[in-house]
């Protein structure tokens, strides 16, 4: 049953899309019909899946790095008002720089290899993780913070035995926002200086006006994101069973 609904939703959307391409007689160059897209995919299934794997790998490793970097960053920010005041605005500023515009610089710096793509992913992912983790840690109920104070707990304990745990559900919100951005980050990295990955396929097909192929690649991206997203949701359920979100209300 559970699986039926998303499939229904998908069918509804695909149906509307198909109808639109027929009714409005949209040129395939602009928006190809679902059939065109499927056909494009079936022409090169092996190749596309291979490229998809490349992108997944970049996205996942960048995402992992972002978690490893972002959570401690959030900790530092909540830990010290001084650090927060000094570097939080910079983080916001960094996040606001359009990644598409700095992608070439990143490639110049870090080469055509995996590094530059992973870095792009990190640049895109880190901010949502930091901000939601920080906000989660800050929203720890006053009564629990008081408990730790009363035990004269070190700040390390306050952070690792209390705030981080309390923040976990919100950390996951950050992670879920990030994971879809991660895929996009990888694609942007691939737009500049790559010869593999779905981003490269999109670039190629865009430039050769092969819109159905681009759509096929984007559909794959969507599938990847949805899979990664629900993998996270599943992890959350396992890891945060006490969260209000999972109680039957």
């Amino acid at each position, binding site marked *: 049953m559970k699986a039926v609904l998303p499939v229904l939703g998908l069918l509804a959307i695909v149906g509307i899309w198909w109808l639109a391409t027929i009714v409005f007689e949209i040129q395939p160059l602009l928006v190809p019909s679902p059939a065109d897209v499927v056909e494009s995919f079936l022409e090169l299934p092996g190749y596309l899946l291979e490229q998809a794997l490349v992108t997944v790998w970049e996205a996942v490793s960048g995402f992992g790095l972002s978690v490893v970097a972002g959570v401690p960053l959030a900790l530092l920010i909540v830990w010290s008002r001084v650090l927060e005041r000094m570097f939080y605005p910079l983080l916001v500023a960094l996040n606001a720089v359009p990644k598409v515009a700095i992608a070439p610089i990143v490639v110049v710096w870090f080469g055509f290899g995996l590094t530059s793509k992973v870095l792009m992913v990190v640049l895109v992912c880190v901010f949502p993780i930091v901000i939601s983790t920080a906000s989660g840690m800050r929203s720890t109920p006053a009564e*629990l913070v008081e408990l*730790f104070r009363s*035990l004269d707990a070190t700040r390390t304990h306050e952070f690792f035995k209390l705030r981080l745990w309390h923040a976990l559900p919100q950390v996951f919100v950050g992670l879920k926002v990030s994971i879809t951005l991660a895929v996009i980050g990888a694609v942007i990295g691939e737009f500049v200086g790559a010869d593999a990955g779905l981003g490269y396929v999109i670039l190629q097909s865009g430039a050769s006006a092969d819109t159905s192929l681009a759509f096929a690649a984007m559909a794959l991206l969507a599938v990847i994101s949805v899979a990664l997203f629900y993998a996270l949701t599943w992890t959350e359920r396992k890891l945060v069973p006490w969260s209000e979100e999972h109680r039957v209300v």
Partner: protein
Amino acid sequence: MITLNGVSHSFDGVHALDGIDLEVGEHEFVAVIGRSGCGKSTLLRLVAGLLTPSAGGISVAGERVVRPRRDVSVMFQRPALLPWRTVLANVLLPVEVFGLADHRDRAHELLELTGLGGFEKRRPHELSGGMQQRVSLCRSLIQSPRVMLMDEPFSALDAITRTELCEELQRVQLARPRAVVFVTHSIDEAVLLADRIVVLSPRPGRIRSVVDVGLPRPRALGQVELDAVSRELRGLLVTA
């Protein structure tokens, strides 16, 4: 052990405590009673070093209180349990924070004693209100502090459990006396347990009077001598 010197406290716009002078001996059990909202919890927080008094000074064991101390345990009015920890892990929290050796057996013992045997692996949201309060009690008992601050520890418990735990507390205090400040709404409880009872007047909380309970221990609920003190206290509260 605890000395309060002209302690006052205000929250923005609310004058909670006013000019409290109090001395609690090293082995003394002091109960605090007073109308709801008169500043009892605030008093405990001040002694615990969780709040800084607006005026006056507090010292514990001869040192000025500027921050919480590890030899002072606090049991809060609300259970304040960590929702992600099991009952057992919640009880063991102070031990973990202090970095002490294994206290698992002691924790099980306390849980058994408070009637929570079998609930060690449950999470707080699966417990009734009274059970949560008992977990919080176990957590504060697992530390062996020199000073115990308890804020209405038995308020959510039924008469029987309450009596049992009162007796247990008396036993512990006789065996290994410490300085205890015990906030309660039950006059009987105060009379049963305390060496001295501080009666606070309503907002702003001032010391209305201090009653010495000069009765021999162990005491038992329902003793006629206790009733006399209870009546006196009730009178003081009404006119407080």
